[in-house]
């Protein structure tokens, strides 16, 4: 028995000497959540841990994920712009071939389905999409995984985080999702106001708030709840003829043409340009659009119609939308690339 013990010790020591790195020890972490946000259940196979989030953070900013080795997730989802990119449309993304505007990733953990037609069921599966420039996926993810596996440190990190011997599509999709679920934004002036800090909002902004949630504008009926979205799909009459058919792309139903997922309005001041195709440059113009009532389209939601808002009322609405910016979120260092 003693001999056996000796051998175990001996090989154990050899094993230790071979690995140059300090052992990576993982631990579960709590993702901070504002009081007003509903609890969020992480998927059973992807509960948050320190190393999973770290791995996801590294991958999010890793150009090896792109076939050109030139872009990473953070190229189109830039923290200072609440994870959007300031461009009308982003070139070369799966299936939309540069026809869509990069959406914010703030609070993605709570979103029900992903992409503007809601075709993707989980944040994990969504991560497969951006890795491909054409309509289909498969080979690019495999190439990316191949390149990543040449990086010993990253491999060790992946092993410690997910217990798998190599970096595979499972690890990449899980880690990216895990990191993205830490994009929590709920500390705007309006949130503080709701928590009782009445001085955070002035009268002008309050009038805007009342208008926003009024029967008259109906803004709040679609952009409602803590995330300022009903997570449903609507046609707001942006066009009389849609070249991007939105939800109908997935369902082929004529009644779904021009329907897009209601975007959150949190941090809206930072996420210009607006709409699925980035066709509206400023918030003033968005409000002017709603005031006119949209283009005639058979699927246009009845709530979008000419509003007859005065100049003052438009300004009030705008002022309210500006209270939804969370300045702490966009400066959160642990959401930026790791400094090496």
């Amino acid at each position, binding site marked *: 028995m003693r001999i056996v013990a000796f051998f175990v010790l001996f090989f154990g020591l050899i094993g230790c000497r071979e690995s140059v790195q300090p052992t990576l020890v993982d631990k579960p972490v709590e993702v901070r959540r504002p009081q007003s946000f509903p609890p969020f259940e992480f998927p059973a196979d992807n509960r948050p841990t320190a190393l999973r989030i770290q791995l996801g953070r590294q991958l999010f900013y890793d150009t090896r994920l792109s076939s050109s080795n030139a872009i990473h997730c953070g190229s189109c989802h830039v923290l200072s712009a609440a994870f959007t990119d300031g461009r009308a449309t982003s070139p070369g993304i799966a*299936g939309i071939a540069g026809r869509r505007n990069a959406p914010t990733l703030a609070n993605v953990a709570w979103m029900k389905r992903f992409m503007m037609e809601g*075709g993707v069921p989980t944040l994990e*599966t969504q991560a*497969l*999409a951006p890795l491909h420039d054409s*309509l289909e996926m*498969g080979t690019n993810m495999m190439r990316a995984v191949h390149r990543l596996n040449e990086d010993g440190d990253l491999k060790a990190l992946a092993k410690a985080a997910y217990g798998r011997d190599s970096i595979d599509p499972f690890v990449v999709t899980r880690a990216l999702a895990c990191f993205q679920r830490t994009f929590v934004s709920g500390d705007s002036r309006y949130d503080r106001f709701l928590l009782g800090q009445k001085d955070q909002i002035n009268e002008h902004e309050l009038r805007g708030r009342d208008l926003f949630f009024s029967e008259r504008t109906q803004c709040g009926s679609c952009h409602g709840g803590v995330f300022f979205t009903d997570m449903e799909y609507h046609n707001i009459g942006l066009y009389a003829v849609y070249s991007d058919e939105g939800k109908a*792309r*997935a369902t082929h139903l004529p009644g779904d043409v021009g329907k897009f997922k209601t975007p959150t309005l949190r941090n809206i001041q930072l996420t210009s340009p607006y709409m699925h195709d980035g066709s509206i440059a400023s918030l003033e113009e968005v409000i002017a659009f709603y005031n006119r009532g949209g283009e005639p389209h058979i699927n246009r939601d009845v709530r979008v119609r000419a509003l007859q808002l005065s100049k003052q009322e438009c300004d009030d609405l705008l002022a309210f939308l500006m209270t939804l910016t969370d300045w702490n979120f966009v400066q959160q260092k642990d959401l930026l690339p790791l400094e090496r």
Partner: protein
Amino acid sequence: MNKVFLLLAVMIALVIASCTNEPEQTVIPASKATVRFSALWEGQPFEMQQVYTDAFGNRLRADGFLNFISLITLVKDDGSEVLIKDYALVNFYNANEITAEVPAGKYTTLKFGIGVPRDRNKDQDPAQYPSSSVLSVAGSQGMFWVWNTGYIFAKFEGKCDTTGTDGAELLTPIAIHAGDDASYREFVSQSFSIDLTGISKTFDVKLNVDQIFSPVNGNDVNIALQAITHTSTNPDLATNFMDNYLAALTFVP
């Protein structure tokens, strides 16, 4: 130390016990069924990179032709079903054979799906399958959409010339990517009676590719008019392609 001996003794006893339990049986050869998929153009093996002229006078060449075939099943004379293979990626041009041992008995029908059945198609996570599975990211070889989850059931890619000019270079791309639940088709053979007890038998399924690109089955897949679909971008072409595909399958038991 005593414990170790006890453990050893138990293990030896177990080994002996398992040896004496060996059943004494006369060996009946296993019954085996092979389903072989191959593609033909006017009766000859259909080859990649070779130029063919279709019924509309278009000249075309295939660079790739990949298909999901699922739930390949043999039905016994008592109505019970024997699954040969759940999901397979079949490229047709390298005769693809799928073999399985089956219970002895008489069989009457062969059936399979073209595509991936509804319960495995939408809202699935291909990253969750081991890479040995054809439904996984690696195994599916790109036969998957991501902006709207779902597998591509049949992918025919190549080039064509639809100007009717002899010898002209083939420049127009063909990319028919048919998928989505509505594109799923089920092939059910005419009935037969074959006793597979103790024998190996190959069932030949042939796809007459020329019939897909022709009006004989009632649906025009005329690449001069339209040669590209990602299903959602041109659902009619995908539907016609799948309907013709099903009709272009022949099976002689």
